[in-house]
């Protein structure tokens, strides 16, 4: 599965061969993980949290539209990511609701340039390229893709 460069966090190598350090469930032992390994664990998390089939969890799949996540599932996903990767997940980093649902950033059903700019800094793990072409607020939910979660986790593992 090819991953677009735009869908990756800025410092990531688009070749897909980058290696990040990853904690085990216990958080003690440290091994190295490729992006595929991160994706594989994220897939397990989403299969458990959302009751979907593993094949449905493609990098492009959107959490709400494609995988049927409801709002409460986001908290479940946060808890499961923390356990699976031994990282601390800040819910408002992964899903920055204060930007996403701020009426100041909406004009005539579309997100304003200021809002998009805020979103870009708040969600470096999301691919905004398609959204920017037609920033209808109802398309915001499509920013939450499996790829965005993988990017976020990689970002966290690098920082750890």
């Amino acid at each position, binding site marked *: 599965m090819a991953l677009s460069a735009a869908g990756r966090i800025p410092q990531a190598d688009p070749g897909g061969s980058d290696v990040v350090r990853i904690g085990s469930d216990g958080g003690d032992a440290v091994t190295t993980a490729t992006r595929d390994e991160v994706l594989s664990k994220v897939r397990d998390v989403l299969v*458990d*949290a959302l009751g979907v089939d593993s094949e449905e969890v493609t990098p492009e799949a959107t959490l709400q539209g494609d995988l049927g996540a409801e709002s*409460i*599932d986001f*908290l*479940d996903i946060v*808890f499961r990511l*923390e356990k699976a990767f031994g990282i601390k997940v800040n819910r408002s980093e992964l899903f920055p609701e204060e930007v996403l649902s701020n009426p100041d950033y909406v004009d005539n059903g579309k997100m304003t340039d200021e809002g998009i700019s805020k979103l870009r800094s708040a969600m470096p793990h999301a691919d905004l390229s398609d959204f920017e072409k037609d920033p209808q607020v109802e398309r915001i939910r499509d920013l939450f893709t499996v790829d965005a979660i993988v990017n976020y986790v990689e970002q966290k593992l690098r920082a750890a």
Partner: protein
Amino acid sequence: MRWIWIDKFVEFEPGRRAVAVKNVTRAEEHLHDHLPGFPVMPASLVIEGMAQTAGILVGQARDFRENVILAKIRSASFDDYAVPGDTLAYEARIETLEDHGATTRGVVRRNGEEFGRVDLMFSHVGAAQVSGLPRHNFVFTESFMTLLRSFEPVGDAVRGGGA
């Protein structure tokens, strides 16, 4: 009738683990219809029993400052039925406890033998978010606190954090 599906706590380790028991009895009216001639405790009520055990455990861990709302049944599986005369023991353990909520893992034993597993997720809801909603929507009312007070072995420790 208050919606209480546990009879008493038999073990309570604050912030960690609790065990509550429930005696299933033929006097429970719903068993006359579920099912006619074949009384079986509905699995949904077994889950409710675990949710109450785990919910009080989670609430007590933070001194009942937040309302603890059952947000999600992460998984539930049962190997058999519970019928009148059975004693269920709900053992709940806190897996995660954070500002937003908590997750618990649970084992249900029937007459001492494991017969089900129920893993739950709770969401913490502060007073500001529930203002205007009726108080009886939430679990930590007087009748629930009585359950903890009637638990003698660690009663003092638990009472200290009462609502």
